[in-house]
């Protein structure tokens, strides 16, 4: 069982990471680089001219060290996601449920909801320089939200009684009833147009990557059986 879990998680995690890194470089990184021009003061929102600031500034090109680190850490993070997802797949298999590449996509989407979408409702993916509450408080809320959302989704999928489903809904709702830690004042220098685009793309890339991760987990899980 352990060998099957490790093999599945490493293969699924690494392959997904390269797809995720490619999508991030194409769709997310340009917005990050653009926001850094505002964080550093090279560009100023509204500017001095009164006619606005260019939406198409020159961006720094490929940086081997910086971008190489991004690929490396994407691989570590997606392997971490894969270990969590495959742990769930193994537990479901143990209980007699079959997981295939097709149902794996559903597993992946559920993982995306637990790890990215639900936390994003309280703490949207933020650009460098965005105003935010204390990082430790946000991390506590983040981990708590991921944990109870995953539990809630599990209970919806595998629960068999209305009482269990009611508990599941409560699990999904509690983090948002408590509410995420937010800053007292807004001080972010980056135009909201970039921030909104960034949040939407970060989530879209997350969804695509998690769907791939779920499908590959289902595939390697059965290959290793």
């Amino acid at each position, binding site marked *: 069982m352990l060998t099957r879990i*490790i093999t599945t998680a490493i293969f699924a995690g690494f392959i997904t990471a390269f797809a995720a890194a490619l999508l991030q470089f194409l769709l997310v990184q340009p917005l990050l680089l653009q926001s850094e021009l505002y964080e550093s003061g090279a560009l100023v929102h509204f500017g001095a001219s009164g006619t606005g600031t260019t939406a198409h500034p020159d961006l720094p090109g490929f940086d081997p060290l910086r971008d190489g680190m991004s690929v490396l*850490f994407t691989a570590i993070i997606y392997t*971490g*996601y894969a270990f969590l997802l495959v*742990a769930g797949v193994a537990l479901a298999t*143990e209980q007699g449920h079959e997981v295939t590449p097709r149902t794996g996509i559903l597993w992946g989407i559920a993982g995306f909801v637990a790890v990215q979408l639900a936390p*994003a409702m309280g703490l949207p993916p933020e650009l460098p320089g965005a105003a935010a509450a204390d990082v430790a408080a946000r991390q506590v809320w983040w981990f708590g939200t991921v944990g109870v959302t995953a539990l809630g989704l599990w209970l919806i999928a595998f629960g068999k009684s209305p009482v269990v489903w009611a508990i599941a809904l409560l699990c999904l709702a509690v983090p948002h009833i408590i509410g995420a830690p937010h800053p007292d004042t807004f001080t972010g220098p980056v135009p909201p147009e970039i921030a909104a685009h960034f949040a939407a793309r970060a989530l879209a890339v997350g969804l695509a990557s998690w769907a791939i991760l779920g499908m590959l987990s289902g595939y390697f899980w059965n290959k290793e059986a």
Partner: protein
Amino acid sequence: MKTEAQVAVKSQALVGSNVLAIAFAAFVGVGLIAIAGHVQATTLHDAAHDVRHATGFPCH
């Protein structure tokens, strides 16, 4: 031929080791995500910076 009790003991041990394997996998997963995504040590933070933002982790 195995007695029923022997089979039961063996399958119980198997279930126990499976649960341990699953718990271990979950622990590794949380560990990797915490190290790559959440630890605030400066070197780690700087190296993982872009990915932390792009995956929506609380970064700074």
